[in-house]
């Protein structure tokens, strides 16, 4: 389209999965709560109310630091950022301006098979605001302060991204890191991770004027908003017009960005150190404790392990990103992790989930509770290994069972009763083969003449006579040996 190069930086607000708010002992999960039920005098900014820092939030911020490949800062501080808005009860937001808890870090992305590290400038703890709603046709607005005071970690990238595709890869990988480090619930639908994208375009090494598009809550909207901004800014410049430095919003329905606030309207936030909160000083003991509690397997560890099981890159990424796709329905990788020592089983589970399970989930077939999942997959593996299930029947049985809420007590008994188990008893199949050969003399003659095609026909007949339960490989072997004996 043009020789303009885009430069992109991303700020991501990650909601930390703490039990309580950042500065108050009030429940934090506002997803299902009635408006203004998760509040206290602290969240309401009542006179005399003081903040006190939630240690779990500090713990999670430290985890995030390790996930980004750096040690958390031993010294950090909280500041007040002032502005008036009904969703901000104190008239200021508590955040970290000059001394954030995380400095530096990187996120590795893969573009066209090539790895590229994206720098992280910083990440700081801050409290979320509440939520305003403006009922249509009414002369009032409503404020819900359930979310006010929820802990966020704002992760700021370096402007190292140069395409919408890279930005999407960064957002996705950042999501995986935070999810794997168990820092966030990662519920994108409820805004657990929100992205602000800073985009500019330029023909030379001097950066162009940037816009910031705020509050994107899906990877797709990150990609689309950036694509749109690159195109819009490039066209403006090509027409000889200037890009305005401003804050923009994303209209998902119209798939375009729109002006929200220009630089002239920008707030002076009058930052100042928060005198109610002493500087946060972390001991080596605390930092080491967090480090020792980090989940062992991060995305890159999984990539390495899964490669070792013989999976290809595409399969590996499908599994790693399955977290994202499945949300809290089920986690596949922990199932595999339990059996990493049994390489054959681990590989089976990996393949099975990529090839059978995930496609069925996408078709909306999954009803089975997550507690049963591993048991079912292991049964399928064992029955297949014992030659009791053909691959076709294995899939059919699996599909049948995951669309029920519970597993039958013994999967094998159920499979037998419902006719999924293949007969591998040689004498039983030999009898059927003998009957089939007697009933199809022409085919027998053909085989004797060397027309092997007829074997397939006879196997089919055996399967039919056994109502599909005969082991086809065994049937074929017996057909051959019985004809040879004729």
């Amino acid at each position, binding site marked *: 389209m043009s020789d303009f190069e885009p430069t992109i930086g991303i700020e991501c607000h990650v909601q930390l999965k703490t039990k309580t708010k950042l500065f108050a002992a009030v429940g934090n999960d506002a997803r299902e709560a009635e408006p203004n039920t998760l509040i206290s*005098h602290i969240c309401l900014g*009542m*006179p*005399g109310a*003081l903040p006190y820092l939630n240690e779990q939030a500090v713990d999670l911020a430290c985890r995030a630091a390790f996930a980004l490949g750096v040690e958390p800062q031993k010294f950090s501080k909280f500041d007040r950022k002032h502005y008036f808005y009904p969703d901000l009860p104190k008239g200021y937001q508590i955040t970290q301006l000059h001394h954030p808890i995380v400095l530096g870090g990187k996120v590795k992305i893969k573009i066209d098979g090539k790895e590229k590290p994206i720098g992280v400038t910083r990440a700081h703890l801050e409290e979320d605001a509440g939520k305003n709603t403006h009922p249509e046709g009414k002369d009032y607005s409503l404020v819900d302060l359930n979310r006010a005071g929820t802990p966020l970690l704002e992760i700021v990238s370096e402007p190292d991204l140069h395409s919408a595709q890279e930005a999407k890869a960064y957002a996705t990988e950042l999501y995986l890191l935070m999810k794997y480090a168990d820092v966030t619930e990662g519920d994108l639908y409820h805004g657990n991770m929100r992205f602000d994208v800073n985009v500019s375009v330029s023909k030379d090494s001097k950066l162009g004027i940037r816009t910031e598009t705020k509050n994107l809550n899906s990877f797709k909207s990150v990609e689309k908003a950036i694509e749109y901004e690159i195109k819009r800014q490039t066209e403006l410049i090509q027409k000889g017009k200037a890009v305005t430095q401003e804050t923009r919003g994303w209209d998902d329905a119209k798939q375009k960005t729109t002006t929200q606030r220009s630089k002239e309207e920008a707030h002076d936030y009058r930052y*100042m150190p928060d005198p*109610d909160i002493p500087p946060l000083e972390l001991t080596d003991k605390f930092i080491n404790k967090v480090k020792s509690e980090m989940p062992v397997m991060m995305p890159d560890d999984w990539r390495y392990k899964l490669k070792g099981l013989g999976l290809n890159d595409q399969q590996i990424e499908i599994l790693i990103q399955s977290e994202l796709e499945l949300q809290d329905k089920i986690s596949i990788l922990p199932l595999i992790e339990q059996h990493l020592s049994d390489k054959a089983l681990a590989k089976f589970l990996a393949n099975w989930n990529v090839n059978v399970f995930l496609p069925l989930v996408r078709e909306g077939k999954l009803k089975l509770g997550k507690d049963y999942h591993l048991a079912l997959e292991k049964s399928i593996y064992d029955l297949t290994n014992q030659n009791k299930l053909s691959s076709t029947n294995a899939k059919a049985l699996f599909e049948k069972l995951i669309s029920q809420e519970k597993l039958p007590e013994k999967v094998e008994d159920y499979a037998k009763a419902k006719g999924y188990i293949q007969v591998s008893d040689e004498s039983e199949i030999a009898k059927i083969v003998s009957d089939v050969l007697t009933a199809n003399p022409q085919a027998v003659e053909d085989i004797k003449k060397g027309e092997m095609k007829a074997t397939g026909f006879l196997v089919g007949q055996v399967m039919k006579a056994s109502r599909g339960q005969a082991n086809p490989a065994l049937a074929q072997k017996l057909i051959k040996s019985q004809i040879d004996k004729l």
Partner: protein
Amino acid sequence: MSIWKSIEEEAKDVATGKTTAVANVEKSLKLIDEKQEYKAIIATTRDRALARAKEVDQKIAKGAPVGRLAGVPFIAKDNFLVFGADTTAASNILKGFDAPYQATAIEKLESEGAICVAKANLDAFAHGSSTENSDYFTTLNPYDKSRVPGGSSGGSAAAVALELSPFALGTDTGGSIRLPASFCGVVGYKPTYGLVSRNGVIAMGSSLDVIGPLTRTVEDAGFVTELIAGKDELDSTMIDRAEKDYSQLDKVSLGSLNIGIVKEHMGGGLDPGVKTNVQRVISSLKKAGANVEEISLPSSKYGLAVYYILCPAEVSSNLSRYDGQRYGYSQEGVNNLEESYAKSRSHGFGDEAKRRIMIGTYVLSSGYYDAYYQKAQLVRTKIINELSSAFKKFDVLLGPTAPMNAFKIGENIDDPLKMYLTDVITVSANLAGSPAISVPAGLVEGLPSGVQIMAPQNKDKFLLSVAKRIEEIV
């Protein structure tokens, strides 16, 4: 001659059945009623106070434990969140505000059986030195009704001077306990920053605010401090109590003390009568064998300037929450959100709050932050360091509490700078977070004035013990 015995004795009398909590509360309420003309009180908590008094008496009847302040009535400055009456900080914007929880200090006193009977007047949001900035009325000085009681805890100081209750609580951000104590002839004690929880007290300048007692004696101040001090997880800026039992003061020998007299506090501008009072105390100390020397704290002259940058900065931030949206005064009939903010705050805040919001907003604005706020923080550190080195040489520093005694109502009201000068001596202790106490030093032409004694941080018990000795020799 006094209306009330010492706090400890009052509690003992209730606990042993010599009198009852109900009788004490009724007595206090009656006194409040009789002395209404001084306008020390904004509101009483009559119903709740009597109900609580009955509970205390019932417990005593049953032989249940009642605590060390059983049935002792007290008065809280109206910037403490208290049940039983509105909490307004004497401001229009909080008129009608019914506290949803109580301040930690109040809870602690109540758990010891004390009973809050009334809310005392103050300069609105504690901004001032005279109670003339109260959105209700000006409190009159018990020694001269034409004069101010000092501020901002003027209602509390006047109440104690009038003995409406055995003690009162105040807050001290730049001198707001000590100045009115000096003007009203009572003891006003500002503990080390962080010794008493600020939770539930309407914030003025959070890095400076301290809660403390106004009492008739130093011993009483120690007794109250003992019961309100100590960690509270709701206030993150608290310190560990370094000393035990402020109610049992040590017998300090004056002969062993090194006392520093801050030269800058004794210089020009000091009222001659006030100076005479201080000098009388100094010569008594010398007579008792104390080593008294002059010391210069050259940075102390910047104290007030630093204070009037940092304090308004924090004020402008702390007052942001009063926006008329969730509680407090909200302007009716507005067309939009912007107008609601502007009109609610314009009506709700008085001139002094507005002045401080404007100064604070200015010094925090981008482009001015470094020149004002940042610079002031640097000078604050310098002042702290200067004080620390002074305390290496001296056990305590002594001087006047304020350069003047109680001034006439209206005398300074149109000259904010002159009004601010009342704090010129007291602010250092707030900037440094160190404890300081004002002890009555006698009358000059019928008006009281106090001496201020300062000690290093965490030396509260030592300071109180020294103050008690000084109280004895005055």
